[in-house]
């Protein structure tokens, strides 16, 4: 009697996931639980880290086949959502609908701070290549410095899909740590007197300018860097929805329902690419280290460009604003405001910092477009 029962039980165990579980998968669960802890208990970018971490757990379940090409549910999300380049542009549609270009239009010269911060992207790219990453991988690592999650995912999926999960987790982790990473760099590169510089009031912006700008901006950027078109076009379309004020339903849908749905699909799909074979490698540590280099270099280059602008202009810019040129909207702008307030409590920089912060999004899109054009993604 006991023989057949044991045979059935043995067959059940042999066919279960338990029998096929590897140490690598268990380690991946531990990493995923760490990310879940950061997302839930510490609220580190929870909207993305939580689904990414859960996707990681699911992708490392033996025999479940969720990432089986052509079959698995998560593979379908990944293939049709990310590989087909649907989800990141839709995220950008929502971001556009949430973005107010007013602070940028009000002080247009601050747009160059958004460009300055992108120098850090290329410094990290160069460092990554010098350390042995091929050009496509190095571009995926460098773009982390842009602090723009959807752009990082879009570029990485095109150029180095095997690194997608690692690069995305590094980007979102460091974006959550912007208040820790940026202030020491900002203090190191500025004097107290510079941090106390007060900005002159921006000009008034006509509502019509806000309607025309998404169309004009879209045209000039895509004409210059055509490879940036999918993200730039959706970003500006979302913004046109918002500023035209005639398609409130579409604006609301882009900002809320659509954005939330694609965020779920994006997070789970990215997490699902992180299996033990690709993640548990020494190179992953290099990606995280270089991601930090990218953030620091972008912050530093933004601040230094602001100082350069001060050398060339009579109207001074508070150089801390350069740090807001890394996109991380609106976290980097808040950090700028906080560090400025440490030097002068009456210096209210938040609204001014939103200009370069939004310019940083445009700059990262252009930087990604340049990588795609050069490396044939």
């Amino acid at each position, binding site marked *: 009697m006991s023989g057949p029962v044991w045979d059935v039980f043995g067959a059940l165990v042999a066919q279960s996931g338990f029998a096929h579980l590897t140490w690598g998968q268990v380690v991946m669960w531990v990493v995923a639980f760490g990310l879940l802890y950061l997302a839930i208990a510490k609220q580190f970018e929870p909207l993305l880290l939580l689904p990414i971490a859960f996707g990681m757990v699911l992708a490392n379940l033996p025999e479940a086949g969720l990432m089986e090409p052509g079959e698995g549910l998560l593979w379908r999300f990944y293939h049709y959502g990310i590989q087909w380049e649907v989800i990141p542009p839709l995220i950008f549609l929502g971001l556009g609908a949430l973005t107010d270009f*007013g*602070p*940028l*239009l*009000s*002080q*247009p*010269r601050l*747009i*160059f701070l*958004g*460009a300055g911060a*992108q*120098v850090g*992207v*290329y410094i990290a*790219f*160069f460092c990554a*290549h*010098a350390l042995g990453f091929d*050009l496509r991988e*190095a*571009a995926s690592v460098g773009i982390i410095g842009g602090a723009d999650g959807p752009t990082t995912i879009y570029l990485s999926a095109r150029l180095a899909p095997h690194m997608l999960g690692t690069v995305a987790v590094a980007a979102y982790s460091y974006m959550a740590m912007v208040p820790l990473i940026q202030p020491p760099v900002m203090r190191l590169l500025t004097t107290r007197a510079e941090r106390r510089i007060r900005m002159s009031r*921006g*000009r*008034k*912006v*006509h*509502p*019509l*300018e806000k309607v*025309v*700008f998404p169309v*004009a*901006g879209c*045209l*000039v*950027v895509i004409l*210059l*860097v055509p490879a940036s078109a999918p993200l730039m076009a959706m970003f500006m379309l979302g913004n046109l929805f918002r500023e035209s004020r005639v398609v409130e339903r579409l604006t609301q849908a882009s900002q809320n329902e659509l954005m939330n749905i694609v965020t779920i699909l994006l997070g789970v799909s990215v997490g699902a690419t992180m299996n033990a074979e690709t993640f548990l490698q020494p190179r992953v540590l290099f990606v995280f280290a270089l991601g930090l280099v990218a953030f620091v270099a972008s912050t530093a280059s933004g601040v230094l460009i602001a100082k350069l602008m001060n050398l060339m202009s009579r109207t001074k810019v508070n150089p801390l604003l350069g740090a807001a040129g890394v996109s991380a909207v609106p976290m980097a702008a808040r950090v700028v405001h906080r560090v400025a307030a440490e030097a002068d409590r009456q210096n209210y920089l938040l609204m001014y910092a939103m200009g370069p912060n939004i*310019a940083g999004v*445009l*700059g990262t899109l*252009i*930087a990604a*477009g*340049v*990588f795609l054009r*050069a*490396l044939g993604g």
Partner: protein
Amino acid sequence: MEQALEIFTSGVVAVFAGMGLVYLAIRAVAVAVARIGPRKETAG
């Protein structure tokens, strides 16, 4: 390494050129709106 340096240079130039174009677009839009637009204004 040469190609990396080339991408580095062309990337930095393209980003500044792109932002320069956006800057010019903003100024052009502001001038055009001031000339032809209605006079209602709002805070930036």
